[in-house]
């Protein structure tokens, strides 16, 4: 099951050029771009691990693309996202966030029903991937999906 989260979730995976245009757009708006990764795909898992610090004071998207490439190389089987933080007064929130890397195989979610008192039913989502301990989900093998592979020109660390 293909996880969709954040901006552009309704679109096919972005190519590196498209990612670079989005990152450049964010930088030109004065947003700080950060790279984050996780292997817990639950939709309520909003705080992902940070790959380095957010990039304040960066002028060109090439720097962020370098970090995206480095993060992909280190965690090929993880979800990687780029988020842009708008620090301007009155907003101070994530302005843009989209997935730039995903595992080759995504097993998806199971719906758990829990019987509660008075015949009530509580529902919860359980990601099959989280049955494995963190770091061993989605296998250690490199991904085979061509669209998201770090391309050699830019991104290889």
């Amino acid at each position, binding site marked *: 099951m293909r996880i969709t989260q954040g901006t*552009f979730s309704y*679109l096919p995976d972005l*190519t590196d*050029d*498209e990612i670079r*245009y*989005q990152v*450049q*757009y964010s930088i*030109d*708006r004065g947003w700080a771009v950060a790279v984050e990764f996780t292997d817990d795909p639950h939709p309520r898992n909003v705080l992902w691990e940070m790959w*380095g*610090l957010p*990039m304040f*004071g*960066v*002028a*060109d*998207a*090439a*720097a962020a693309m*370098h*970090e995206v490439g480095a993060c992909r190389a280190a965690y090929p089987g993880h979800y990687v996202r780029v988020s842009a933080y708008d620090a301007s007064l009155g907003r101070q929130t994530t302005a843009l966030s989209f997935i730039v890397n995903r595992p080759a195989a995504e097993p998806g979610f199971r719906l758990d029903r829990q019987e509660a008192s008075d015949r009530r039913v509580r529902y919860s989502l359980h990601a099959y991937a989280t049955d494995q301990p963190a770091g061993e989900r989605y296998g250690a093998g490199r991904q085979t999906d061509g669209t998201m592979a770090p391309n050699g020109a830019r991104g*290889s660390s």
Partner: protein
Amino acid sequence: MTVRGKPVPRGFAMPAPATGEGPGDAPPGGAASGEDAAVAPAADARLAVDDTVDLAAEEQALRISQLLGRLDAEFIGLAPVKDRVREIAALLLIDRLRGRYGLTSSRPSLHMCFTGSPGTGKTTVATHMGELLRELGYLRKGQLVSVTRDDLVGQYVGHTAPKTKEVLKRAMGGVLLIDEAYYLYRPENERDYGQESIEILLQFMEAHREDLVVILAGYADRMDTFFRSNPGMASRIAHHIDFPDFTLDELLQIAGKMLEREQYRLSPAAGEAFAEYVRLRMSQPRFANARSIRNAIDRLRLRQARRLVAAGGVLARGDLMEISAEDVRASRVFRDAARAGGARGGLAGEAARAAPSQPAHPGLS
């Protein structure tokens, strides 16, 4: 202006925003942008093998001569720098033309090393180099990140690499100027973290040649030592440019420009006195070319202010702008020269008091 030669973003991608193309960056003369728009479609058309192409038209489209003209006007002297920029601009032009015939044209390595005496304009040129390379289309942003050893080298194990990478990331799309680069390498301390920083620099310079231009600046002799101990660095820098010392005439022209920028002017007598001042100052120790001239002008402003305040009374606009000969003659340089002249039998002092050999520059009077 669109980013030419870049793949068009597919489908939903946002159009590239027009920042960095503000009014300050617009070419002088309103017609230029229209002309650019008119020429742009033709510039992208693929040519057949036996077609010919008009060099002048292409050059006009890229506004290269305009750019080089501005460089000539802004910088006085510095012939080696101008030559090199002219070469880079010419290569850009030829690469464009080659591209139209379908010939390959890879981006040349643009890392540079500026050597020269203090005050010969190394940092100033580096600042403008980013802008220049952006306008030539070699850099996307052209911002300047100026760093020294402190900004690159960490204080404990594992601190250097992230620090250097952080700086390199900030400089991407523009110019990284490493002032006094030889301080990075300290041979006397084998556990110095500078070496680690150099290694990361080298790696980035090679891997991100399209994204980043690294400029090393420093004094020639120490730079030589630095390169001798880091041959990898020397070979990765394509352009070694030596900044010559300014001549007296060039210094006077520079002074004229500085005064003009600060909205001061020298009276004719003061112009002559200043030419003499510069000639004397050049022969004294610790002369730092244009930097000494800038300091001298700052001191002239101080003396002028003191003179005006001491005189009191009613002042006109012209009085506030004009620097008189006595402001110039009050300098320590004249006293020192006279004393040295007196000690040597008055010969040098005589020469100093004689009319300056060079006529005062027109910009100064």
